[in-house]
């Protein structure tokens, strides 16, 4: 039966697994760099606010403008825009290595906005109480602000990782490799509909697994 309905999936199965692995690698690397950078930017955004610990209007505005600019560029265009930069940084603008740079730059503004929201949900009263205890601002940021925001941060990271899978497929279509380009090359260009279908199933499953693992982690540390 499989042979009848999914002939191409059988034939190109190994390539598909390789493509899926590529996607996993892209998402993991871009995700790790992106989450880290996004979190740092989010913290800076929050502490430089008017009512923040390190109030700094100029820095806040500059950062906000840059984030907004990058958020407003559609990802496909961003990939094209970054070709030279990517080549300069990675030595190539295609394949996994070529995809990671635009993926990071594409996801960081998104992560930083989501993480900013999570950090803003920390009760300002808690920060005030810590200051009233004579605790330093730096200690407050690392030992109170970020730990208190953890459940929200995890949720925002999950959402970002899922978006990143989307970005990876787009990066794939412009030479990035991974399951996205695989689906386009075989499923779309060569009319192998069964490949498209199985790709979709794999993506749907992956997203659901990530989401439910993330929810479980977030709930575990929510008190």
């Amino acid at each position: 039966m499989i042979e009848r309905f999914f002939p191409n999936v059988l034939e190109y199965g190994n390539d598909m697994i390789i493509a899926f692995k590529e996607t996993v690698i892209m998402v993991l690397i871009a995700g790790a760099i992106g989450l880290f950078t996004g979190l740092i930017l989010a913290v800076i955004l929050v502490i430089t606010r008017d009512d923040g610990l390190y109030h700094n209007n100029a820095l806040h505005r500059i950062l906000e403008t840059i984030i907004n600019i990058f958020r407003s560029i559609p990802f496909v265009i961003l990939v094209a825009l970054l070709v030279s930069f990517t080549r300069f940084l990675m030595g190539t603008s295609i394949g996994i290595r070529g995809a990671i740079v635009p993926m990071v730059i594409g996801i960081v503004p998104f992560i930083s906005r989501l993480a900013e929201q999570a950090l803003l949900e920390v009760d300002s009263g808690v920060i005030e109480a810590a200051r009233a205890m004579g605790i330093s601002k730096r200690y407050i940021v690392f030992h109170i602000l970020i730990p208190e925001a953890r459940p929200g941060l995890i949720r925002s990271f999950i959402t970002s990782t899922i978006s990143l899978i989307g970005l990876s497929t787009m990066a794939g279509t412009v030479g990035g490799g991974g399951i996205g380009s695989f689906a386009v090359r075989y499923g779309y260009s060569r009319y192998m509909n069964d490949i498209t279908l199985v790709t979709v199933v794999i993506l749907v499953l992956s997203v659901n697994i990530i989401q439910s693992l993330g929810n479980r982690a977030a709930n575990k540390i929510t008190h």
Partner: protein
Amino acid sequence: MSYIRIKDVKKSFKNKKGSTTEVLKGIDLEIEQGDIYGIIGYSGAGKSTLIRCINGLEKADSGSITIEESDITTLNEKQLMSLRLKIGMIFQHFNLLRSKNVYDNIALPLKYQKYSADRIDKRVNELLETVGLTDKKRSYPSQLSGGQKQRVAIARALAVKPSILLCDEATSALDPQTTESILDLLSKLNKELNLTIILITHQMNVIQRICNKVAVIDDGRIVEQGNTFDIFSKSEKEITRAFLNSIFKGPSRDDLKNYPDHENGRLLHLIFTGEKANDSLITSIAKSFDTDINILFGSIEYVENKPIGSLYVTIKGDPKAVEESIKKLKEQSVRIEYPGGDTN
């Protein structure tokens, strides 16, 4: 010199449109060691800003705040941080860390001060005992009631053994019964640790129950200050009287407005203080001036453990006799208010 001396403190805030609001318009206060000093005022009177000036969370624009002979308005951030070890603070909404359990919440200031694990453990257990929460050690704030949360906050505020405790509307989010138990705890800490407590509130029952000194704040100014009983038994200021009246049960303002004054005689609100808080005076006046005095509502409340009585009465009879009766009451230093209007 007083333990804490606040002199001509002013503070303004700029809003986003650029206009400034003066929140504190020159505050003078003197607080002695061991006082439970209540600052009472309506919301917007500036009391939150005032209490935050005392530990430097807000910086006063001008004036001086002297604690143990050092003016804290001249301190830099680092010096303020070490000053705050001497000044604990608790809040209306408790401000506990949701991600940490009771033990870790209380341990937070100790960890920051780099106490050894043994000392932290000893101190936290000691504090848990003081506030009566030994069995809740491993609970998270979300599993506690409001009163329990405030107890944790008190333990946390006292962790590094401050000599002053600031209470920012600490009981405003609690039900009356829990409020009482928290006030009892504060009172106990005041006595056992010789802790100076400064609290701000809009609830007269807080002042009435534990404060030995009180300041009434209105529109950024201290209207009056002194011993709690003296202020509330003698004050002529309208806002102070309004706060005092708020503790007496009685007819509502609307009821009084609709009261048919002329038919039933003149409506008076009598306030007796100290030993005069009994009603034999009423009977004797009614007898000697031949007036009808009808008691509508009466209650006695205790301020600083001294009684203050409140009576709503109507007085009816020959107009001249009514005047004489009122005069006699005043002579007995009974305070009289005319809820039905002053001149009819």
